[in-house]
């Protein structure tokens, strides 16, 4: 278990600490050179208090590669700049950038202060809520690419501010709402002031008719904008509902406002304000103000949820190399067209769907399939947008550009799934519809009765209309689910089907896949078996030297063993046989390292055991050493299993792997129910059996070979990134690959259920108690207004408790983030 954590990004350090950075006089451990350079820059700028002030850890620092610097230079061209840069009045330039990696207010402070110290920068303004940076600078002193590079130097990423349609709509909606709220608030305060004067005058009976009239005219003046501007969203929504021949709660709200306003207006203008006749201007204003604040909170919750799922779209690089007129030039990926020929270097992300033109290569499609081991692609095979090219430079012919690619289509699927209303919310809206109709009927009856047989007909009817508004039902359940979904998004669980939050609450059995789910899918060197008296360390050094410049799974597993990077052999005549192994010459000996058949011409050799992956090192065709690689557990797995057992969930491992490794893993985790060597059909049977025994099953897998099982389980979760949807029909995706999100999700689902129940209970009781009182005339319209809007606010605020909730003993900081 790691006892050291990187001071900068707070991820655990598994081997001995190799790098330190001195911050404020103390040497702090660092996990990599990236974090170390960033920490030193922060310390050198005198910003070390950033580490004390921040409330959340930052991401691990990125490497500033030459490719990155080249890409940033693209943004110095005026035609690339026109969408996010403009000239200011003093001949300076102003750019809007999106900064990624901001986690709390201290990050904003650090960025603003660091950037301000650079020559040529006039001003820097960064918003915590939208992550937008507005930078004004003198273009003769410094270039935009240099500014962007500075952002990367202190550990953040940035790109041009390019919000999509939905974001713009939401942004303006929020602004307009704030304006409406402000007008309603000020109107309410002014009207209340004059209304109290009138009530006081009523009480002491010495208010002259002249002043009564004046006060009422002023009330009309202030209430009119409130009714026609601030309350217009309600009227619009009511009109839409009536056009669709349905009734929603905005209909009753609108009716209440219209009746109250017109009757009061008539009293003042036509009837010349006879004393003792009630006018309702103050009620209307307060009513609108409270209702708007409730809607505003709901809007912010929706906005927050949208923003927290925004980061899915920046998986792709900004530019790539395209063949044009006889050479490769750098172009933006948005300019790619089908049939373009592009070149992709090892380690780079493939920017479009296409066909491989060059020779056999290896790509990592984890982002699409969840399969973390690389896939070999032969010439004319399909390559997917957003997969990573692992081993060598390749050339590809584009078939679909990024906006039309498979992954883009999958993203659209996610967005549309988010619009579908969950079943319970629909139930609530139906209840609201019937309830509103009933209330209108009652209100009309009461009005007619009191008009002919009693008094105060209008007054009572208004109370009834306003007080029984079923806001709690229609508002609060969606807000609870929105808040839960937004919270889950932040924790790394992306929900694609609407029933997930309610269904998770019913789950009692959790079935895990093994490889890639409980384990990382990354190989670790677990055993070195030298053949016939060769020294193990010597063999390891040979292997590491041979693998030194490669980046695939096995190479990385070897390189983890390096303690002192200078002490390796020089290798000449390196050759890479993709999918089989590597070869090279050290000290005049010819070595091969790879599969048995590749490394040695002796086909009778066998692996020492059937566990894991065996690799053979041969010297001049003589086998000298076996290396064994196995998959390692994810760092958080043990704690997650413990937590899940703690909340009484039955845990089962369902794996296609051999019996030995599965048994070993199950014992290590303390799980008694496990199945090994099951193919997809058998897995399906097992889950169906569980369901027949009345279990509600949550299935967690990595998508690629679990498609049938995932579609059968009550709730299914796929590891890995976004586009698993297309291939795996999972209900939700764990985009951060961190199992801790599962524990949080189950906890949140339970809380959501509790809070929804509380909301419904409150709404029901409130309406039942208050309606008789309203009918009997014991509630003035203003009491009704306060009561109803406060109850809605209460319900919404109760739902907002779901936004920051987490399972108490587990934090995803402790157990690493990917």
């Amino acid at each position: 278990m790691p006892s050291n954590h990187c001071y900068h990004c707070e991820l655990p350090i598994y081997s001995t600490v190799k790098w330190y950075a001195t911050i404020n006089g103390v040497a702090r451990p660092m996990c990599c050179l990236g974090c170390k350079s960033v920490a030193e820059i922060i310390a050198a700028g005198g910003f070390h208090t950033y580490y004390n002030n921040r409330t959340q850890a930052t991401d691990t620092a990125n490497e500033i590669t030459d490719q990155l610097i080249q890409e940033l230079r693209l943004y110095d061209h005026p035609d690339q700049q026109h969408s996010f840069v403009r000239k200011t009045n003093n001949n300076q330039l102003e750019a809007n950038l999106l900064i990624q990696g901001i986690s709390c207010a201290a990050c904003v402070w650090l960025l603003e202060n660091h950037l301000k110290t650079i020559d040529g920068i006039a001003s820097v303004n960064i918003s915590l809520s939208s992550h937008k940076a507005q930078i004004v600078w003198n273009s003769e002193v410094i270039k935009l690419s240099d500014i962007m590079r500075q952002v990367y130097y202190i550990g953040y990423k940035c790109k041009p501010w390019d919000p999509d349609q939905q974001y713009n709509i939401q942004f303006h909606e929020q602004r307009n709402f704030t304006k409406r709220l402000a007008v309603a608030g000020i109107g309410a305060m002014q009207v209340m002031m004059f209304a109290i004067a009138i009530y006081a005058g009523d009480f002491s009976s010495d208010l002259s008719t002249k002043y009564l009239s004046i006060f009422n005219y002023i009330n009309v003046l202030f209430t009119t904008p409130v009714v026609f501007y601030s309350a217009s969203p309600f009227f619009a929504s009511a009109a839409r509902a009536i056009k669709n021949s349905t009734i929603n709660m905005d209909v009753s709200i609108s009716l209440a406002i219209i009746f109250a306003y017109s009757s009061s207006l008539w009293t003042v203008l036509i009837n010349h304000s006879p004393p003792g006749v009630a006018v309702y201007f103050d009620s209307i204003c307060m009513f609108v103000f409270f209702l708007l604040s409730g809607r505003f909170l709901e809007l912010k919750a929706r906005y927050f949820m949208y923003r927290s799922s925004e980061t899915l779209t920046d998986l792709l690089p900004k530019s790539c190399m395209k063949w044009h007129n006889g050479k490769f030039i750098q172009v933006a990926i948005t300019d790619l067209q089908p049939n373009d020929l592009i070149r992709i270097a090892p380690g780079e992300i493939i920017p479009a769907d296409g066909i491989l033109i060059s020779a056999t290569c290896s790509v990592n499609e984890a982002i699409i399939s969840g399969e973390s081991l690389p896939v070999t692609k032969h010439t004319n095979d399909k390559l997917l947008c957003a997969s990573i090219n692992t081993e060598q430079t390749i050339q590809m012919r584009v078939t679909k550009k990024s906006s039309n690619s498979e992954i883009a289509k999958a993203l659209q699927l996610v967005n549309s799934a988010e619009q579908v209303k969950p079943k319970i919310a629909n139930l609530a809206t139906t209840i609201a519809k019937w309830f509103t109709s009933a209330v209108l009927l009652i209100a009309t009856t009461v009005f007619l009765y009191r008009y002919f047989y009693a008094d105060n007909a209008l007054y009572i009817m208004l109370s009834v209309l306003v007080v029984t508004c079923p806001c709690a039902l229609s508002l609060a359940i969606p807000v609870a689910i929105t808040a839960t979904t937004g919270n889950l998004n932040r924790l790394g669980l992306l929900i694609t089907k609407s029933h997930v939050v309610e269904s998770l609450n019913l789950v009692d059995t959790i079935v895990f896949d093994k490889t890639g789910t409980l384990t990382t899918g990354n190989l670790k060197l677990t055993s070195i078996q030298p053949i016939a008296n060769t020294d193990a360390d010597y063999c390891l050094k040979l292997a590491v030297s041979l693998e030194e410049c490669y980046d695939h799974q096995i190479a990385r597993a070897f390189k983890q063993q390096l303690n002192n990077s200078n002490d390796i052999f020089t290798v000449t005549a390196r050759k890479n046989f993709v999918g089989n192994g590597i070869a090279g010459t050290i000290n005049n000996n010819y070595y091969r390292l790879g599969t048995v058949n590749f490394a040695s011409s002796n086909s009778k050799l066998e692996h020492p055991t059937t566990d894991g992956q065996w690799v053979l090192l041969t010297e001049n065709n003589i086998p000298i050493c076996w290396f064994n690689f196995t998959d390692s557990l994810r760092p958080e797995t043990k704690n997650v299993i413990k937590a899940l057992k703690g909340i009484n969930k039955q845990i089962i491992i369902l794996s296609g792997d051999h019996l030995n490794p599965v048994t070993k893993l199950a014992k290590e985790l303390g799980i008694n129910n496990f199945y090994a060597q099951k193919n997809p059909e058998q897995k399906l049977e097992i889950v169906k059996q569980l369901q027949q025994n009345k279990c509600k099953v949550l299935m967690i897998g990595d998508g690629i070979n679990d498609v049938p099982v995932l579609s059968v389980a009550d709730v299914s979760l796929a590891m890995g990134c976004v586009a698993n949807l297309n291939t795996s029909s999972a209900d939700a995706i764990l985009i951060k690959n961190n199992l801790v999100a599962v524990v949080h999700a189950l906890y949140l689902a339970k809380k959501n259920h509790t809070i929804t129940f509380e909301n419904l209970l409150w709404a029901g009781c409130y309406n039942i108690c208050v309606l008789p009182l309203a009918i009997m005339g014991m509630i003035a319209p203003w009491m009704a207004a306060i009561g109803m809007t406060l109850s809605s606010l209460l319900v919404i605020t109760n739902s907002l408790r779901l936004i920051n909730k987490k399972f108490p003993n587990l934090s995803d900081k402790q157990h690493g983030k990917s």
Partner: protein
Amino acid sequence: MESLDILIPIAMIIVVIAITILLWAINNGQFDDLESPSETILFDDTKDKQD
């Protein structure tokens, strides 16, 4: 009570000015980010201290 003949119009004019300024502030983005100013005022400006 005659003072009200002056005071009420003055009050109304002030309210109109206040609403105008408020609407300008919203359009200028003053109300877009309400969370970070509450925290950043607590941070020390170490750069100034060193100079």
